[in-house]
């Protein structure tokens, strides 16, 4: 969706944020792909083609993306940086310290959480990160708010000289709703931050900056508390049910609210730090409280306090009325409010419906790479294959059973080194091209330094496959893979670096080479090359 016309538009939550950034005066956008955040930057890339004043770039990883955003802010420009929730772990270093610099051009971090883990390895809640850094967090409830809050976040960021977190969840990122855009704000010109000390976090400066943050905390809290995003509506009477919703949880509550028979006082929270006075006001006039928040029981834990000291009974994720994990839906909210959940048509009684998990596309190059690796390892007794994050993680499926670990981006190489040093050999580490650049390179340097007895297989499919085929940061060109130069440049012994064409017809030839390198008592790197067939198909269609 590249239209920036004013008038109603049907947008994904991710698209609404991109449009909000462009209309909110952003000059730049950075990010690393990750479901469910990917479409934010993809949409920005579309805008960058039509607006010369707006640039958008995929980066090597979330940390480099965040640092580039900081540079842009220092230069006075408004900048958007996007990632998924676990990406913020990678960017945590610049993120946490950026809370202490005096942000100059507005810096907005749009981070997409994935409750229910549709496409993720955990369901961490980014509101903790915003709290940790003591900065503002906005949590849109719907598409219009995704657009409006993105724009507002730039203004808040410049006003309070801090980064602002825009926290969304999968159901907003990947649902479509109507957005009515407003005319665009002007963009900032280049204008270097005037107080360089506030950007040099030497202990002395950092202490001063931190102190300032802490002393202005009360003012900030008060402004957020009384701002438009934390809305309290109180019902009279002494048999009132209290409901707190945050972000998108409001949609499910509003969906079922008309079915409630008791009067309800409702507090909706869309901006943090928490509106503590409003929470107290709500608590004072209700018999019991039900809390709906997407993600962890962040709010619930605080309201319950130590030893469950809340004056009123609370229902939520911690007490079990709302499931402790997974995403919310109207049925969960109904049940927690004591409303009846409708029963639909029954599933067939004569057989159970088998699950249909995702799988590698037929003809995927990874299938052939795994066939070679498994054949090579069959010559050994015990062995270990550590893997990483990407389509090739699907090598864990029962039809392949080719990998034994997947933890976080780049972990395969470090884990292989550790396991090998612990005495478990042989070890093969499997990592994709984009993940290698993201955070595999640094671990490879460790392995080079120790001449670790591991075999690293870099599966170069020339794309970021899992997230829909973005171009790898340093794109390869078939067997002329750039990764080979990188690996040699870092210092891997050229005799133990191979580039293989991975294909059904090459499985045995390749497995022989892999087996030889596994036998070699030192570090080998094998780059298995063939383009992702989905990306190749798409190129054919668009060319």
């Amino acid at each position, binding site marked *: 969706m590249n239209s920036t016309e004013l008038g109603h538009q049907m947008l994904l939550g991710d698209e609404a944020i991109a449009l909000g950034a462009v209309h909110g005066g952003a000059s730049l956008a950075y990010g690393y792909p990750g479901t469910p955040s990917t479409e934010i930057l993809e949409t920005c890339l579309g805008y960058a083609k039509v607006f010369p004043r707006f640039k958008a770039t995929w980066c090597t990883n979330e940390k480099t993306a965040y640092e580039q955003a900081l540079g842009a802010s220092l230069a006075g420009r408004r900048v958007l940086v996007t990632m998924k929730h676990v990406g913020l772990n990678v960017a945590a270093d610049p993120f946490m310290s950026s809370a202490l610099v005096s942000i100059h051009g507005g810096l907005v971090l749009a981070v997409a959480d994935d409750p229910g883990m549709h496409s993720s390895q955990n369901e961490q809640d980014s509101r903790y990160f915003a709290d940790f850094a003591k900065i503002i967090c906005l949590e849109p409830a719907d598409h219009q708010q995704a657009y409006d809050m993105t724009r507002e976040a730039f203004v808040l960021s410049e006003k309070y000289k801090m980064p602002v977190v825009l926290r969304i969840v999968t159901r907003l990122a990947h649902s*479509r709703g109507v957005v009515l855009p407003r005319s665009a704000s002007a963009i900032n010109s280049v204008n270097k931050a005037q107080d360089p000390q506030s950007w040099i976090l030497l202990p002395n400066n950092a202490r001063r900056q931190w102190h300032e943050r802490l002393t202005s905390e009360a003012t900030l809290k008060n402004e957020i508390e009384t701002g438009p995003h934390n809305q309290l509506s109180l019902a009279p009477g002494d048999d009132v049910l209290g409901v707190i919703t945050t972000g998108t949880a409001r949609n499910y509550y509003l969906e079922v609210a008309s079915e409630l028979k008791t009067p309800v006082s409702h507090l909706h929270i869309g901006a943090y730090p928490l509106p503590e006075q409003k929470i107290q006001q709500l608590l004072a006039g209700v018999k019991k409280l039900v809390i709906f928040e997407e993600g962890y029981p962040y709010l619930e834990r605080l309201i319950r306090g130590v030893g469950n000291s809340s004056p009123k009974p609370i229902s939520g994720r911690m007490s079990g009325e709302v499931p402790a994990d997974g995403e919310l839906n109207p*049925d969960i909210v109904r049940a927690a409010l004591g409303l009846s*959940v409708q*029963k639909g048509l029954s599933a*067939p009684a004569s057989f159970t419906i088998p699950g249909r998990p*995702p799988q590698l*596309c037929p003809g995927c190059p990874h299938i052939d790479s795994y066939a070679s690796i498994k054949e090579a390892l069959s010559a050994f007794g015990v062995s270990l294959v550590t893997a990483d994050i990407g*389509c090739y993680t699907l090598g864990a499926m029962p039809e392949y059973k080719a990998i034994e670990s997947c933890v976080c981006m780049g972990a395969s190489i470090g884990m292989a080194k550790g396991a090998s040093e612990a005495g478990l050999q042989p070890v093969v580490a499997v990592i994709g091209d984009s993940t290698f650049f993201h955070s595999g390179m640094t671990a490879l340097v460790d392995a080079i330094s120790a001449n670790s007895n591991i075999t690293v297989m870099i599966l170069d499919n020339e794309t970021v496959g899992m997230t829909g085929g973005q171009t790898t940061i340093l794109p390869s060109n078939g067997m002329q893979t750039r990764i080979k130069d990188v690996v040699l440049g870092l210092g891997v012994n050229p005799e133990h670096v191979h580039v293989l064409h991975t294909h059904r017809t090459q499985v045995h030839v390749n497995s022989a080479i892999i087996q030889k390198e596994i036998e070699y008592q030192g570090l080998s790197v094998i780059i298995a090359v063939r383009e992702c067939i989905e990306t190749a198909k798409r190129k054919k269609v668009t060319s």
Partner: protein
Amino acid sequence: MKCDLIFAGVGGQGVLSVSAAIGTAALSEGLHMKQSEVHGMSQRGGAVTAALRISDVPVHSPLVSSGSAQLLLSMEPLEALRYLPMLSKDATVISAMAPVKNIGNYPDLQEIYAQIRSLPKAFLIDAEQLAREAGSVRTSNIVLVGAASKFLPVQADSLVQAIRSLFERKGEKIVEMNLKAFQLGRAAAH
């Protein structure tokens, strides 16, 4: 008026474009709606579902409540059975006949057909065959949009316009092919 729709299929079958075609038509009629989609990992050959909620008053939840969807449109017969608990007792089920057998424990196909036929209001459409008649198997999903069209709260004309705008940039030939697929599907569900 409120109409909740569930779309089902296997990653790669074009579930999202079906949802987009109907959503665009509803938007053009000034209706309120919310649509939820699945992106990411399950698009790799896994079970994929989308929901579209259309109403003449604002829609809050992007997700459908159990037992409340009025129409299920499935690109694949086994997938049609997966979401039955989401459907209301008098819901219409429209499913393509061609199976995608990319799992080892795929149940007996005749048994699946029998289950679908036993539902209160179900149509099994040979979408692949009709799509071939229209000019390409790739129009199968639009055949299903056609089959669903009589049960949707939008005019057939709005759907035709939506299909046009969806395929416009691929050229007039593709547009015509999809419109033919739509008409064949529309005639098939009765």
